[in-house]
């Protein structure tokens, strides 16, 4: 959103402000991108190292995956920006419904 329409011809658009915003946005993207590569490496190491038990590795990798999804949504798909309230609401509602389903299946079908 911030990087669009720099040449809109609208006099209200402050080019300096836009540039600063874009630079800031770029920095976040690079930081989160390198974090994501780092987390992926950590996940591979956790499995490849061989000494950890599955009871540690599985929850650990799932945790890393959640962090990755948050990075993806908030930094690459701009959910941190204004105007994404409706998609966020529906994503979280869907997540809630899905988690309740999984919880029920884990507890009363495969108990």
């Amino acid at each position, binding site marked *: 959103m911030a990087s669009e329409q720099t040449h809109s011809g609208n006099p209200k658009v402050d080019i300096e402000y836009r540039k600063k915003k874009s630079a800031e946005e770029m920095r976040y993207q690079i930081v989160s991108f390198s974090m994501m590569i780092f987390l992926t490496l950590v996940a591979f190491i956790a499995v490849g190292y061989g000494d950890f038990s599955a009871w540690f590795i599985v929850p650990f990798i799932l945790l890393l995956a959640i962090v990755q999804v948050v990075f993806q949504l908030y930094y690459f798909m701009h959910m941190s920006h204004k105007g994404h309230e*409706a998609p966020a609401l*529906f994503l979280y*509602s*869907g997540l809630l*419904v899905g988690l*309740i*389903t999984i919880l*029920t*299946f884990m*507890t*009363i*079908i495969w*108990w």
Partner: protein
Amino acid sequence: MSTYAQKKGFGATVWDYLTTVDHKKIAILYLIAGGLFFVLGGLEAMFIRIQLAVPNNDFVSAGLYNEILTMHGTTMIFLAAMPLLFAFMNAIMPLQIGARDVAFPFVNALGFWLFFFGGIFLNLSWFLGGAPDAGWTSYASLSMASEGHGIDFYALGLQISGAGTLMGGINFLVTIINMRAPGMTYMRMPLFTWSTFVASALILFAFPPLTVGLFLLIFDRMFGSNFFDVANGGNTVIWEHLFWIFGHPEVYILVLPAFGIFSEIFATFSRKRLFGYSSMVFATVLIGFLGFMVWAHHMFTTGLGPIANAIFAVATMAIAVPTGIKIFNWLFTMWGGSIKFTTPMLYAVAFIPSFVGGGVTGVMLASAAADYQYHDSYFVVAHFHYVIVGGVVFGLLAATHFYWPKMFGTMLNETLGKITFWLFLIGFHLTFFIQHFLGLMGMPRRIFTFLPNQGLDAGNLISTVGAFFMAIATLILLYNIVVTSVKNEKVGNDPWEDGRTLEWAIPSPPPFYNFKQLPLVRGLDPLWIEKMEGKKTMTPAEPLGDIHMPNNSFTPFMISLGLFVAAFGALYREDYHWGVMVLIAGLGITLLSMFVRSVKDDHGFHIHKEDLLNDDDKGGKA
């Protein structure tokens, strides 16, 4: 003179409807197709009641009875009630928020054609070796043992029509979020729009579990997998869960729009604003939310264990709270109002005690311990017919009378409408009230006959008599529709004279671009606000300008036709060597149509300002 309003021949009209992307015409398509399936489902209901009229009856055989009851339920829920609601959502919701169409007109058409071909496919089973016979719930332990292709028709047909419904739901969501007129904030939206919004969100979350369940069933039955095959480590209870995770929200998908319709009717004919608007919105959202926490109350006797049963019982009872809020708000809307008992208002008033009846038995069924007595008895049949007929069908009939002038420009005859109402109301209570007691006396549901002198004879006969009342009422409604269409007496913008919301500010039926200029919304019930200040029309929110419109397209029909053909291929793949070829050819038609849609640029067209200026007699002013 406008160049748009030309008389068209019959062929041109058919082609227009086959290719249309206009939400008002798609609404009419949904109304016709849904009405057709409603009559089919009604016929099946009559066969059920005739068979059960007297003990030891042999009107139909046991096997055929199973097919009829399965198709009655499946048709009524998926192919009649939902499409008829979609008809009114399509026709009215964009007008209520001041939009010129839905967000994705092409997808709207695609959704309709998928539903239509899915429904036709399912009903062709009657002619191709027998209909599905495992109940509308199609529990896997039954459906896996069912011989012939009936269940395959069920799974493939619902998969296709379900995809259409899902598209429709997403389309309505995007429309309501993005296309509201200037000033139309969320808390100024009419209740029918709100309930469309919540019902669409429920569709978005509830249909994927059904899709998954149906795919597992398709794979098991047609492609040799073992998801539900207990001998190979499968588990049939998974189907029950997946089905009810969809099936319970489905009840609210049906009833919430009906609540919305009644909210509009109560406010209009009490000539008061809706009592407790914000609590109505809150209750609608809360019912939608809780609707996902309660599905296992359909499975109390499956053996989930006392803790699971208790949790789902309490969650279910909680839904009575927001529903009660709504009932009281409707009563308080009428309180002190200047009430006009038109046909829609009669339905609305009769809906309150009828639906509360269904709600009370719902709370009874929700207490898990008592449910062991009621389960699979006619008590349950009585309960859900009170909810679905007393809530949804009353809502649909009310909406037919209420919105008919807006959709077709003519008023249905009020006298005939009132006759329909009284016959239907009496018939409905006659049919289903006695079934509570039949159930309590031990009559199981889904049985094809019963023995004499067990205390069930009189009750079943009364129930059948009631069904004939409802059938006659429906015939009078159809007669009313024919007479009204033949007379063709056109009405103005606001034929009920007390319209409160935006749809009554534009001509009936609206011009194809709906609003010449988008209206400025200054509060809840925007037209009423303008009327109170002595104005007859809305204040425009924009200068008159070119309007961008989408082109008609035949592609939605072709995409759906391809899947219809492919379904036959999947069905007959193991019987005939040509099955695989048909499957591939059908998918080919679909993919090719999608490819054409993707590469062909279609920018639509503009209605120019000059044409709109000359179009004064057609109104359409904001």
